């Protein structure tokens, strides 16, 4: 490659990362919806003039593959009609969007009158229109019942604000907070544009283009070297999705064929079951993201996230399958097919790269309560709480290391934080009773799975609405190489009259009265290796700490205590 300064190459990789990090901090600090500023369900990135990824800050790994494909679509869609000062919105899942609620902003960056790059941000919005507030509509069968579709649309053109377009969009969205959070996304893109232009002014266009190519090349080599260590061959894996929100007893299989040939790897989902007639369906982008993030956990974690990283990876997901539903299917649940997708890939690759695969992770089972806080004077003062602390189970163990306790599902990998207990009691009328590791939840093994947790709180508002979504209530996280499986997920409500209710894994329960006790168990991760080989001192330590019972120590680990 001509005119490439190997030193500048290192400087450039670092500079791009610092820009996308800065965009991310700006977004985190300014947004108001808890799923953005607390759960950090957003991604920021830089793309070149052709939509190739320069760098990303992902926060939640499930967003790892979600901005680049849309950028390429936008280029195709607008052709020559992209101008300096444009700001473009997009969420449409049938033009490479990953989830309806994830609304993206793209800002083209022009240097010396030419389109050189894009800064972009995408975050999960608190509402996106559709039939149900918040976007989770287990009854949906078509996209319009879930969301307002936003194909690429300019809210600013040549620097001029298009009030009519803006109002058309937000006239179809329930909460004002979404307008403010979208402004925060635009702000984050401006931050990225400013830093990128300073970079271009310093080094010039030609230097940027040459070095960008070299950077992709260097990253591609890193990724190829990692893939090269996986033995050539074709490997199959499968996992099951147990409920689609509509048809009880109907199961779906995710089937993946992983083909490794020297430096390239291909994930082929052609044998996966057909799409559902409910909202449990993947989009191409959400499913491909799940694939990429699972692969990334099996390779060197220091590989830069640019176009070179994904270049040696081929992903085939035929339209009409559960992981790439055809127009106009409902798809809101798509991101949450990630845990099952990751399981299928892990099962395929565990036999050939046993040192780099983990046993099964606990799957997401999540709840969201909304209601009127009786402690607050205003009738319209509603609270919304996503019970992050309740949903985080354990990760799978791997050879040489126990699973991570209370980390949460693989698509977040510890990026999703618990609510603070005292803030929880300020911001909701609920009272926390219990939130601790749960005994014997971890899959047994020479390396045990991560611990799950048990969460109990007393609901403080009448007419509370509870939304439940996820799975892991039928099949526990699996063990590997002789390791045991983790415990199951469950949610149980105990009403003040003493009766109990177990919601389905996809459910909406209305009019839950104050005084109801909410009891959730998030399961542990799968274990790795024969539990009888676990050193006695480690078993004794877990028993002493009350996270493994004496009975389990004796019967499963074979250790008298």
């Amino acid at each position: 490659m001509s005119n490439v300064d190997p030193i500048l190459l290192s400087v450039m990789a670092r500079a791009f990362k610092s820009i996308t990090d800065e965009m991310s901090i700006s977004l985190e600090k300014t947004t108001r919806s808890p799923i953005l500023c607390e759960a950090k369900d957003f991604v920021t990135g830089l793309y070149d003039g052709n939509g190739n990824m320069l760098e990303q800050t992902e926060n939640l790994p499930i967003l790892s593959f979600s901005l680049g494909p849309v950028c390429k679509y936008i280029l195709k869609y607008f052709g020559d009609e992209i101008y300096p000062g444009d700001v473009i919105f997009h969420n449409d899942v049938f033009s490479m969007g990953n989830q309806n609620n994830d609304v993206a902003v793209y800002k083209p960056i022009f240097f010396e009158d030419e389109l050189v790059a894009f800064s972009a941000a995408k975050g999960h919005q608190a509402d996106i229109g559709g039939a149900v507030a918040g976007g989770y509509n287990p009854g949906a069968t078509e996209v319009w019942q879930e969301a307002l579709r936003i194909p690429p649309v300019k809210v600013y053109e040549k620097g001029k604000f298009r009030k009519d377009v803006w109002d058309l969009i937000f006239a179809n969205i329930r909460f004002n907070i979404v307008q403010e959070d979208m402004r925060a996304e635009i702000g984050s893109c401006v931050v990225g544009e400013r830093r990128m232009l300073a970079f271009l002014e310093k080094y010039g266009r030609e230097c940027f283009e040459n070095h960008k190519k070299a950077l992709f090349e260097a990253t591609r080599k890193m990724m190829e070297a990692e893939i090269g260590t996986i033995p050539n061959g074709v490997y199959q894996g499968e996992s099951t999705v147990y409920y689609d929100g509509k048809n009880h007893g109907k199961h779906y299989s995710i089937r993946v064929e992983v083909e490794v040939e020297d430096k390239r790897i291909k994930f082929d989902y052609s044998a996966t079951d057909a799409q559902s007639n409910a909202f449990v369906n993947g989009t191409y982008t959400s499913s491909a993201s799940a694939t990429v993030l699972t692969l990334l956990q099996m390779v060197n974690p220091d590989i830069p996230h640019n176009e070179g990283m994904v270049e040696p990876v081929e992903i085939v997901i035929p339209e009409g399958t559960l992981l790439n539903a055809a127009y106009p299917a409902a798809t809101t649940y798509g991101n949450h097919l990630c845990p099952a997708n990751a399981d299928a890939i892990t099962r395929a690759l565990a036999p050939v790269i046993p040192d780099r695969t983990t046993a099964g992770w606990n799957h997401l089972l999540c709840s969201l309560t909304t209601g009127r806080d009786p402690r607050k004077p205003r009738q319209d003062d509603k609270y919304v709480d996503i019970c992050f602390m309740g949903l985080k189970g354990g990760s799978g163990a791997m050879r040489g290391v126990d699973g991570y306790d209370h980390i949460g599902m693989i698509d977040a990998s510890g990026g999703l934080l618990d609510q603070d207990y005292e803030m929880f009691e300020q911001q909701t009328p609920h009272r926390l009773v219990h939130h601790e590791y749960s005994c014997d939840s971890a899959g047994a093994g020479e390396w045990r799975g991560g611990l799950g947790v048990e969460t109990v709180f007393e609901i403080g508002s009448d007419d509370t609405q509870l939304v439940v979504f996820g799975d892991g209530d039928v099949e526990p996280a699996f063990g590997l190489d002789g390791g045991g499986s983790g415990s199951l997920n469950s949610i149980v409500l105990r009403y003040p009259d003493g009766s109990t209710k177990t919601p389905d894994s996809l459910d909406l329960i209305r009019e839950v009265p104050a005084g109801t006790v909410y009891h959730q168990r998030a399961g542990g991760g799968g274990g790795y290796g024969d539990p009888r080989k676990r050193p006695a001192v480690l078993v004794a330590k877990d028993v002493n700490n009350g996270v493994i019972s004496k009975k389990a120590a004796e019967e499963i680990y074979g250790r008298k205590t």
Partner: protein
Amino acid sequence: MSLKIGIDVGGTFTDFLVADGDSATTFKVLSTPSDPSIGLIDGLTEIAGSRDVSLSELARSIDTIVHGTTVTTNAVLTHTGAKTGLVTTQGVRDALEMRRGIREEQYNNRYTNVPPLVPRYLRAPVAGRLDYKGDELEALELDDVREAVRLFKLEGVESVAVCFMNAFANPQHEREAAKLIESELPGAYVTISTDLLPSIRFYERVSTTVLNSYVGPKLSSYLDSLVLRLQEIGFGGVLLIMQSNGGVMAPEVARDKASLTLLSGPAAGPRAGLTYSRAHGHDSCITVDMGGTSFDAALVRDGAPIVVNEGEINRYRIALPMLGIVTIGAGGGSVGWIDEGGLLRMGPESAGADPGPACYGKGGRRPTCTDADLVLGYLDPDFFAGGKIRLDVEASRGAIEEHTAKPLNLPIEEAAAGMYRIINNNMAQGVREITVKRGYDPREFPMVVAGGAGPIHACLIADELDIPMFLVPRESSIFCAAGMLMSDLQHDFVRSFVGDLDKLDWDALGRVLTDMVEEGTRLLAAEKIPEDRSQFQVSLDCRYVKQYHEVSFPVSVDAVCQAQLGEIATLFHREHNRMFGYSLEQEGTPIELINIRLRAVGTTEKPARAAEEPSGADPDEALKGERRLFVPEDNGFANAPVYDGNRTRHGHRIVGPALIEQVNTTVFLSRSYDCVCDKYGSFAVYQKGKENRGAVTPGDSAATGGTAA
């Protein structure tokens, strides 16, 4: 005669600054990690020797010792704190270990959680519950506390942390439990969460309380031994301990609130930076300190170092106010290497002092930043540490050739220049962390450069960030020891008081503030600070309703006591806008108060500094030779003059490229920079042609000028 001595105990060296009237001398001795007070007395002995007096004569002539210690920091880093038990609310005993469920490295499945400072079996649950307002829902079960004490006795627990749910709103349960523990477990070190940090957020509080108990016994016994040794040699003056917030405190306060010293080490740097930048008319500055393994960057704005209320040490959360110092792995020992994709990287791994850089000849084989500096001609192989360590250029060249030049297919010099450039870039990113990422423009601040290696790299860091001016103090290698003598007594208080501003019980808030002021007055009085040298600064942590992150901003005592709602709201909107680029003032979004904070400051007497008479601009009398060195602007080598930093005089002007050598520090001026020596012997370095944007004129270096724009 009354001396003031600043003592900074570091991992390798213990630094001393002795202020005698308006003259200052510096000393460095080897640290003694097993009992740092030994090295401290060694240093005092050396100082006595240099002044031709006995140790006890010296001790009697000292009126103040200010001391920065890494005793608590090391206890946490090496997991050698006290065996600690936690007494906490039933049902939430795992919050400490869960750390809200974070895994910092999301793609790394081999990344494990940090071991909890209190293992689960020593986290004792106690029944009894307060609601969100602090009202009792369930009485405290003292039998549970007794049961905990029984367990702690059995297990040999030396230190106890007490932290209950919602105690920030009512400390009653915690106090009752602590009273019982103190009577039944005599001699134990007990921390009550609401004494240390009476603010909302359970995880923050429990983690901070446990850290305090974990390091408390160690700090107490160290201070006991230090006070004893100082008494033995006849010291009768005032001993003050450096805190993480940049202030100092009496040893008695430090004993109870040991966690206030967790970042005591680098905390004096920003205050020192301010003293030097003030001499040039700047009330704000960036301080950077490049040591052997790490690079610390901090920001001082409007006369005060930036303080953050959330930090961590070794991944343990600590929510006490501390200086916002960013530390990155870049230092003289940082190792250069090639990653899997063929890119050159520097650090964070360091060769440390042993084996050290290849050029030390102590067995180091991998190329470090110091090796690159040597190959590029910035270091004199015969004059490193004043000639104490002889550097081996060929060893540096060999290491660079093998590990970076060959893989990159570059000549050795170019690879060394690359290493130099990459590490400078890394450090510039560290400065971005404390400026750009917090909403400040680095170009508006002069940079004060410390640490032995810092001044070799400062031009390039400044250039990357377009900083027009930086200062290298003559005492740059013992910067923190100098800063300690310039620090004030400082105590931070916080109370949570949650509610919408327009519905707040302002009388009650006023009473809370009055209580805090009284507490501050009491502490300062105990430290013998008269009222006319006491000051109180109030700030509020507020947010827009339903936001999750608070913004902290200063207000006057009157604004709170007289409920000046409009004024307070305006200040909040303005600060929110400054930090995040917008406010919701127009929308009329309600503002919520979370915490009120008070800082009580007792001004200490600072040593004076003698100003030198100006001499001419010609530095010829200080010229000691010429050396071939790398000039980044030319991307090549050239001959450049070398000046003796001990012979430069006030007013001398040195034109880059050039080197200025002192015993422990070398300043490199690249082609785009010139330097003027100021009246305190510091080197003021300017981007060529931008001197008038700085604040100094060669004739009168203490004149105040406009701020750098």
